[in-house]
């Protein structure tokens, strides 16, 4: 089922990102297609060189020079390529590089004309430039024409030389984004708002098993476990449905507010304050699971809610509250659909469709939770000492969530230490509890034993300076972080748009990967731990200029950078070719895997 759904999604994405024009993409401004420069040749001659972009070519017989408004000059050009392909007729062409030599150039400016095409795209009108043999300067393109002012529409969002105004803007701006219509927009065009509303729950379902959604499971399970005796399949269904609906609703509201106000949702939700409060909430929840006290909302709140909800049961109310606040955990996880919805709201102001899409996304993410709630409702053991045991297990789950939430706020080694303490505590719980059967006893002890050993290892790791809970002994093994032939990936940091532009401008013919990350971005940690350390990824990115934009300290500069690059939040990866143009369909948002990363990287290999 998941495979089939992924297939559908894949097809859809391919369709979405297929450019409206033929496969060649938007034509480059002529100076990026054919970058011209002049130099002094041997014996007082003048040499002109073109660097030709991938997929473009110049015609040999269309290179000509003359004295301005005067006699033609002899131009020497090397033989070009005569393709067997009949498309090229009798003429010779140059790929990648072309050169022309004017042996008796003199010292007065020369009028140079040249012409070429974009493969499968357009053939440029002849380009004429003044080349000064003395200063070796090449004039700018002929003065721009007046901007179009009639109601002629330009095509989509492309940064093609449609309007001279735009062309110039992108030229000085330092980079060019791929013309993607955006997820919602494309779905709308494809099948109207209904398709948007149908697809987003599906996207949600596909994202339901990602790390961001995991904390929901213990939360919901904990809420259900507190029901004790009263819990049935029906009640489990109702409670989990309420929980999920509240979550989706909060998701939609937050998305609408964030997208509409232009504020950054993730930044707010991932502030240390939010994370800290959440961690404390989970500790409190855990303590209540351990039976230290009965968790009650202040009476004034509950009565306020009760009078307004017509006496909805206390459990339902708390399920709704829990769901509503759980958005603080799911919300910050940037995924392609979330980014798409936020950008859509920000750009079109269409809050209704954007928020409805987000609501659908939330429902989709919660569907497995409802299944779990319903099944768990009939499967969870009831009553007595048993219930107490189950509650404690969830207590440990809550404590684990608390540590996980607090990790970014803690000094590097402290989280390792806390994990160790938690594991050892869980182990002692497993050893002391009175197990009902022999099998349970064996299982409990086995789990407890493993927890104890790993806890001890973590403790040693923490003491020896390790920071990665999955590799606590790496520092002791003393063999460096990596043992592969491929080079370690080194990211240079940028903090603002001008920074990035400078980096792109000095890429020296390299393609560039820009990676948006932040300490608080959970998915980013996963990417850095597994994806970026993968050998094939390192090989695939070997020829790239690697740039990292760290959003941990969020300020106006990186906010502006995000806006200019149309990035909704971390993790997002953008791929620019050597000409600072984003390659269409390569952008990765949220879900970065070894496969998707190498695929995107390989699309820029030709550069």
């Amino acid at each position, binding site marked *: 089922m998941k495979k089939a759904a992924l297939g559908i999604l894949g097809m859809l994405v391919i369709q979405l990102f297929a450019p409206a024009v033929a496969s060649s993409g938007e034509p480059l401004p002529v100076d990026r297609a054919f970058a011209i420069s002049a130099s002094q040749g041997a014996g007082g001659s003048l040499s002109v060189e073109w660097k030709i972009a991938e997929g473009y070519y110049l015609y040999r017989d269309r290179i000509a020079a003359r004295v301005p408004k005067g006699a033609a000059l002899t131009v020497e050009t090397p033989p070009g390529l005569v393709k067997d392909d009949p498309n090229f*007729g009798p003429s010779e062409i140059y790929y990648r590089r072309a050169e022309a030599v004017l042996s008796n150039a003199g010292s007065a400016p020369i009028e140079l004309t040249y012409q070429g095409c974009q493969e499968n795209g357009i053939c*440029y*009108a002849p380009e004429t430039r003044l080349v000064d043999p003395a200063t070796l300067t090449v004039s700018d393109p002929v003065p721009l024409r007046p901007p179009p*002012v009639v109601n*002629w*529409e330009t095509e989509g969002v492309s940064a093609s030389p449609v309007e001279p105004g735009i062309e110039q803007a992108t030229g000085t701006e330092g980079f060019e984004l791929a013309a993607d*219509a955006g997820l919602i927009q494309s779905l709308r065009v494809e099948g109207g708002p209904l398709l948007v509303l149908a697809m987003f729950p599906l996207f949600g379902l596909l994202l339901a098993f990602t790390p961001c959604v995991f904390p929901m499971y213990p939360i919901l399970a904990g809420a259900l476990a507190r029901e004790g005796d009263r819990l049935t399949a029906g009640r489990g269904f109702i409670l989990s449905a309420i929980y999920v609906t509240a979550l989706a609703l909060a998701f939609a509201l937050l998305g609408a507010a964030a997208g509409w106000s232009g504020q950054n949702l993730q930044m707010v939700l991932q502030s240390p304050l939010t994370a800290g409060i959440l961690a404390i909430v989970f500790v409190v929840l855990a303590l209540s699971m351990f039976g230290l006290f009965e968790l009650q909302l202040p009476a004034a709140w509950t009565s306020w809610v009760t009078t307004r909800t017509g006496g909805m049961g206390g459990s339902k109310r708390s399920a709704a509250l829990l769901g509503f606040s759980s958005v603080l955990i799911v919300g910050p996880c940037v995924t392609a659909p979330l980014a798409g919805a936020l950008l859509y709201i920000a750009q079109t102001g269409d809050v209704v469709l954007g928020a409805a899409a987000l609501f659908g996304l939330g429902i989709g993410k919660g569907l497995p939770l409802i299944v779990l709630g319903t099944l768990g409702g009939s499967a969870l053991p009831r009553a007595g000492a048993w219930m107490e045991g189950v509650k404690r297990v969830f207590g440990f789950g809550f404590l684990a969530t608390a540590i996980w939430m607090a990790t970014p706020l803690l000094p590097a080694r402290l989280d390792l230490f806390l994990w160790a303490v938690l594991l050892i505590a869980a182990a002692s719980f497993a050893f002391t509890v009175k197990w009902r059967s022999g099998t349970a006893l064996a299982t409990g002890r086995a789990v407890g034993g493993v927890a104890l050993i790993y806890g001890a290892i973590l403790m040693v790791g923490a003491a020896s300076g390790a920071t990665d809970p999955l590799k606590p002994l790496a520092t002791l093994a003393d063999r460096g972080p990596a043992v592969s032939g491929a080079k370690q990936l080194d990211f240079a940091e940028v903090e603002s748009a001008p920074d990035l532009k400078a980096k792109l401008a000095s890429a020296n013919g390299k393609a560039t990967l820009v990676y948006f990350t932040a300490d608080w971005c959970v998915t980013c940690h996963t990417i850095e731990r597994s994806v970026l350390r993968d050998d094939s990824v390192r090989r695939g990115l070997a020829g790239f200029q690697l740039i990292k934009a760290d959003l941990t300290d969020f300020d106006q500069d990186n906010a502006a950078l995000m806006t200019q690059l149309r990035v909704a939040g971390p993790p997002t990866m953008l791929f620019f070719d050597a000409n600072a143009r984003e390659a269409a369909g390569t952008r990765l948002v949220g879900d970065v895997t070894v496969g998707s990363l190498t695929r995107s990287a390989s699309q820029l290999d030709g550069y």
Partner: protein
Amino acid sequence: MMNRRGILKAVAAGSAIAALPVPTLAQSFPTVEEVLFDPAIPVIGNPDGDITVAEYFDYQCPFCKRGHKELMEIVRADGNVRLVMKDWPIFGAVSVHASSLVLASGESYEKALNALMATPGRLGKEEVDSVLSESGLDPSGLLAAFKSDQARIDGILARNMDQANAFGFGGTPAFIIGIRIYHGAMDRKALEAAIATARES
């Protein structure tokens, strides 16, 4: 930039078609009438069609020619499209020669156009003539017809070039479908989608 993209997206979404505020600048800027309804240029397809497709092209531009057959098929199959081929000779004298002869071919306009558009790449003057005679036309007769009608044909070429420059087209092909501008070659899917978009607005 961001705002501009936003606006363009909104336009693409069909929410603000043709309602952009139009400042009165550049008096020389082409109007819909001048671009899509130039009376001097023969119309292909359905003269009363609800949508006009205009293509700025050159007889030596390989990508203009590669898509031509498909374009003609779409126009024929749709039945409600006006096609206006706007000669914009950017490949020099041979292209001007080809455009001049075809525009002088009167009743045989479509035949002459299709014959030259069926060639693959760059052309010589002799090649143009031989392709035309192979399809049953008389190049020297066409040249004579051009000479006697030169003012009209030169006028077409001049107007087309002015418009292309005013639009800021980088080269050929460039399409105008409805009132929307498209750069570069378009395949069948892109053309059909563009025609559908034009109908929606």
